[in-house]
């Protein structure tokens, strides 16, 4: 029976949500092909304690590699570890998240294996001869259906495209020996910002600011609104990151992050086609802009025409009040 390998991404010894997405997807494929789910868990000493969680989401075997050197991401050693396991076994598919780490690790592994890979996959189906997936291209303006032949195949799944679903697996653990200290490429430091700050790819709500805010200090309005919602991240347009008002990592759009939160609030954003490419798949879009002809209003579920310096503080106060009264 062919098995399915899932890479369970951990950071600082903690599982990331995308790890559960990868294991859930692997479980779906394994149930279809009649095989087992094998999850790879890499981290510093103690990460093995997370194997139980992976078993709850369907892992039959958890392959644990612990080493102090895995405190940082170890690209070469991790890819070699996964590829060696796949070469030594019978696997139909190897599943990663298309997280920032997965965008590095999945192609690295496929290159070592010399097998077909599809990245940033939004849906998949595994057949006898081929794997069919969908993959957004042209900055999200088209959806491509791709066919991968050969066995195994490597897939990286767009974060959020699979919802983690509990389904108990056997959860046997196996230790795997690996030492990243001799690798050519070394991550020397992992710099994390405010750990309470939600990432754009994971936040259910995004409040995003554009040139209409006029100056870097006015982003406080956006941050205050995000704080009022409580579970919101702050994004920006390219014009804003090019001005240096916000870091490049905050940029949402064609060449930046592609996001699809439950709620996207566009503050002082005109809605250039490059920006829309990054957020048009959001479930609900709110736009606040003084120009009623701004293209953002064409995609916004709810638009308010007005001065952001007047509307946003009023909205912040109203959201605070709404959340207080609902508690």
């Amino acid at each position, binding site marked *: 029976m062919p098995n399915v390998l899932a890479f369970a991404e951990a950071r600082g010894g903690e599982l990331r949500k995308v790890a559960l997405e990868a294991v859930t997807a692997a479980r779906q494929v394994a149930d279809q092909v009649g095989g087992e789910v094998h999850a790879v868990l890499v981290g510093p000493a103690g990460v093995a304690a997370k194997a139980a969680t992976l078993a709850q989401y369907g892992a039959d075997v958890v392959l644990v590699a612990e080493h102090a050197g895995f405190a940082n991401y170890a690209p070469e050693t991790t890819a070699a570890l996964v590829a060696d396991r796949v070469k030594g076994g019978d696997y139909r598919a190897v599943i990663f998240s298309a997280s920032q780490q997965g965008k590095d690790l999945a192609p690295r592994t496929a290159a070592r294996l010399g097998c077909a890979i599809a990245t940033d996959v939004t849906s998949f189906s595994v057949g006898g001869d081929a794997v069919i997936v969908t993959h957004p291209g042209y900055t999200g303006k088209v959806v491509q259906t791709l066919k991968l032949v050969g066995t195994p195949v490597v897939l990286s799944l767009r974060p959020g495209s699979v919802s983690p679903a509990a389904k108990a697996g056997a959860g046997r653990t196996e230790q795997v020996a690996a030492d990243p200290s001799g690798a050519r490429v070394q991550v020397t430091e992992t710099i994390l910002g405010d750990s309470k700050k939600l990432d754009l790819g994971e936040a259910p709500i995004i409040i995003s600011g554009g040139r209409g805010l006029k100056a870097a200090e006015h982003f406080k309005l956006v941050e205050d609104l995000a704080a009022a919602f409580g579970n919101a991240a702050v994004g920006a347009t390219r014009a804003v990151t090019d001005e240096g008002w916000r870091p490049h990592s905050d940029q949402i759009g064609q060449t930046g992050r592609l996001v699809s939160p439950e*709620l996207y609030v566009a503050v002082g954003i005109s809605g250039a086609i490059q920006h829309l490419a990054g957020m048009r798949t959001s479930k609900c879009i709110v736009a606040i802009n003084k120009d009623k002809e701004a293209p953002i209003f064409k995609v916004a579920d709810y638009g*308010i025409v007005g001065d952001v310096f007047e509307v946003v503080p009023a909205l912040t106060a109203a959201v605070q009040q709404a959340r207080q009264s609902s508690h």
Partner: protein
Amino acid sequence: MKIAVCIKRVPEMDVNFKIAASGKGVDEAGLKWDMSDFDGYAVEAALQLTEKLGAGEVHVISLGGDVVQETLRKALSMGAAKAVQLKCDAVPYDAFAIAAALAAELKAGGYDLIMFGKMSIDGANGVTQFVVAELLGLPLVHACSKLEIAGGKGTARREIEGGGELVAFPLPAVVSIDEGIARPRYPSLKGIMAAKKKPLEVRPAQLGEVRLTVEKMELPPARAAGRIIGEGAGAVPELVKLLQTEAKVL
């Protein structure tokens, strides 16, 4: 310092695409074409490295029909010294097929650094550089938003969710470039004139096996037309009510 930059010619993205009659690609009528965004950053970063070191040169390589010569000439006009077209009728979708041709060209080039954009803006896969690095046996650092080279070693920063990673690696190496590293320069008139005299070599592309193909291309479902619910702060209560009762996000 000898640097190769692999570049791709892609349609400009600031349009609403139509699907071609084949159902497997975009309708190319009326599209404007240019260097893929991230490849432009890579060319700029490569030029800045050789300028900073005061030594070395940048070569650019592209795969495709004769139309890619226009894109290669643009890189030459920005300051690259030499261009190579790996000629083929159609660029395959599978990164393995492309990487085989690139690696065959790069193998004997004696490059200290081989650079790519982190992904093409049309295919959006970000795989080719990994296969090239594997075929050449070189270390690779993907999606560098900062890059420094000194004493035969490189250091880079990669963006991750909520932070960054600092990476050290030896040369020669393959690196792919993320946004934020450098805005590509506009070719000067002098650069454009000089580019006409720079070498542009054409060789047949030695493509590899294809196991990944596009079966279908579609437009994503359209969004319903937007609606404006009011003007000024007076519209805020109505918005909050809709977010609670209709969108159910509050």
